[in-house]
């Protein structure tokens, strides 16, 4: 064949065996990006916010610059607690999957700040539309780990009644929406929710999260367009953890522009933030939420972070990226960074940290025990199988009653 193809194909900087290389990640010094007033005209701020990187924690673990949210010790401790809880929960549930106790799991290792700081920066009445890697939102809103474990076990207390795969949680009382297997569908839904809030004249806003890979889906565009046209009070988050299963962020367009830069094209401010900097994520979310609540419209936030572990328990990342990539990730570990800052601020100590880890570990042990009491994959109480036919509609319609009867007859 004499063809000389000239189609550009994106290449990640490193493949298995190569030395990790994150030189492509543009990193601003902490404190370098100005913090505009929430009412500033987009034109005047778009370049800096979308292309630079909002960072608060510097290399010495000090908080610097205009985005420092000046959180008090209590808030910091709460943040650290839930980040640690998220991490420990992930660790254990991953182990449970490996032991065959649950069928599937997805960790958020290395991305804990993205969820926990955001949830803390938002109000309890704000509605959250997560992806499958935002378990931190649940913890930060005070969810009992038992609830999530029951979902993972599809047991009698599973809020999904056994109908969803593990990790597809929701929480009505906590204002956390259901996770769909279909990527990005929650994005326009969040915008619609926010539109309804504005129509009703309510104060609550919506926030949604997708991965950078998911930003290629149609619903990203739907959400951005509707949010822009109606100035919907919504915070739209893209979690750029560099990978979408086996493809790196270049396959979603990240080779050319930060994902935050998509915002300004729609007339929506885009803010690029160090997703591993708890304080920065908090501050940026707060800023976006304030804009939304004041009627200034939506904000797009790109959280620059790294998916430290496999995509899911079905994945093996050593097939497509260097094993030690995370170690080379220039933005470090969000948990360690917050902890170091707190220790420096005398808001925390190693001893406290150890105690907290022990406390949370014990809590998770107990939680698991408790959750298993509501049924496991092999033992204990099981969901009523007749539930299979419920909730397709509000009422069980005649054809489903017939099918349920048929099912029961067969069971007998």
């Amino acid at each position: 064949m004499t063809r000389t193809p000239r189609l550009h194909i994106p290449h990640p900087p490193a493949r298995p065996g190569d030395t990790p290389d994150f030189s492509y990640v543009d990193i601003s010094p902490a404190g370098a990006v100005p913090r505009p007033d929430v009412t500033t005209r987009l034109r005047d701020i778009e370049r800096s916010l979308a292309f630079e990187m909002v960072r608060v924690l510097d290399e010495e673990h000090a908080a610097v610059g205009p985005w420092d949210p000046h959180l008090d010790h209590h808030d910091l401790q709460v943040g650290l607690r839930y980040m640690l809880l998220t991490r420990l929960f992930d660790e254990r549930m991953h182990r449970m999957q490996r032991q065959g106790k649950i069928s599937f799991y997805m960790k958020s290792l290395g991305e804990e700040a993205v969820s926990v700081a955001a949830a803390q920066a938002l109000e309890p009445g704000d509605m959250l539309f997560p992806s499958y890697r935002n378990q931190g939102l649940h913890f930060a809103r005070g969810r009992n780990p038992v609830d999530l474990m029951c979902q993972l076990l599809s047991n009698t207390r599973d809020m999904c009644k056994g109908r969803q795969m593990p990790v597809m949680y929701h929480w009505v009382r906590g204002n956390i929406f259901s996770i769909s297997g279909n990527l990005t569908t929650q994005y326009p839904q969040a915008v619609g929710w926010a539109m309804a809030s504005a129509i009703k004249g309510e104060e609550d806003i919506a926030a949604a999260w997708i991965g950078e890979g998911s930003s290629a889906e149609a619903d990203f565009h739907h959400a951005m367009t509707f949010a822009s046209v109606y100035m919907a009070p919504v915070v739209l988050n893209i979690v750029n953890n560099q990978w979408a299963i086996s493809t790196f962020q270049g396959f979603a367009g990240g080779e050319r522009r930060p994902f935050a830069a998509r915002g300004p094209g729609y007339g929506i401010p885009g803010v690029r933030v160090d997703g591993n900097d708890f304080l920065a994520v908090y501050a940026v979310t707060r800023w976006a939420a304030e804009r939304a609540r004041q009627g200034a419209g939506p904000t797009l936030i790109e959280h620059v972070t790294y998916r430290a572990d496999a995509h899911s328990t079905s994945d093996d990342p050593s097939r497509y990226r260097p094993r030690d990539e995370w170690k080379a990730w220039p933005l470090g570990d969000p948990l360690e960074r917050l902890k170091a800052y707190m220790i420096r601020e005398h808001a925390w100590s190693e001893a406290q940290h150890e105690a907290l880890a022990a406390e949370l570990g014990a809590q998770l042990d107990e939680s698991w025990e408790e959750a298993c009491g509501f049924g496991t994959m092999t033992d204990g109480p099981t969901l009523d199988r007749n539930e299979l036919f419920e909730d397709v509609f509000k009422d069980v319609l005649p054809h489903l009653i017939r099918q349920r009867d048929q099912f029961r007859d067969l069971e007998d």
Partner: protein
Amino acid sequence: MARMTMIQALNSAMDIMLDRDPDVVILGEDVGYFGGVFRATEGLQRKYGEHRVIDAPIAEGGIIGAAIGMGVNGLRPISEIQFADYIYPGFDQIVSELAKLRYRTGGEFFAPVTIRTPCGGGIRGGQTHSQSPEGVFTHVCGLKIIMPSNPYDAKGLLISAIEDDDPVLFFEPKRIYNGPFDGDPDKPAMPWSQHPKGEVPEGYYSLPIGLAEVVREGEDLTVLCYGTMVHVCEAAAKLAEVEAEIVDIRTMIPLDVDTIRQSVEKTGRCVIVHEATRFSGFGAELSATVQEECFYSLEAPIERVTGWDTPYPHAFEWDYFPGQKRVAAAMVKVMEAG
């Protein structure tokens, strides 16, 4: 009682529901200031404001996606898809989200969205303004699906759809917006004012979702049909000189199996008619159901009369449309069989 066209009846249903329930909103392309390309929402924005009757970007996926979010936040959105042919960009939001939200959340979240959309041909609309895609949606679990055949049903069923807490797809056969077209394009158009079902109460009323209607009783054979085809079948029965029992299905999900069974058990013969293409159309489900329910009563093979298995061809519209002649031929065939 007033005399209304189908468009007026639909407009009246939405008017009443916007008035009764502050949570009802309308969202769609050109539905606001302009009142919709078929005028179904005429005057409603003026009356209820721009925040209740909302012009939307041209993005069906966004229209459905946003409506789901609105529904979750306590509103009761009516989404208009300008032509049923353009519902496909919203397909994922309908099928993966709207239809399954209640189930996947163990009944804890739901979005009471009604999707209205004009369907069907006979208006020289070519392949992208003539489709009847209801069959595709009937295979999706979690949607209620309606297609009325006259102004009275349209209003009563649309009000029920809006009030329903389940998502409802509401197909409007646009060929009969202004009159009960009987399949003969050469005949002068008959207006709804001359049809008994053009008599429509001005105020609130609702019709139950899930009931078929026997629009004409007969002993010879049962005809299962809906939408425009109800009127075509009535005319065809005269043409074929058979005493057809014509059942207007009205709601595909839930399907009124009892009415169907009773009729076919009585007549022993059955013709199924729809405008959509034949292969895997809703007629297949009707045929399978009749066969399962009435096997021992059937005296002749069930016949399906449908659009051909091709896209809707602009210039060959009346060769494509399952008109009186084709329906009548099927009736005769079924009567002669067995």
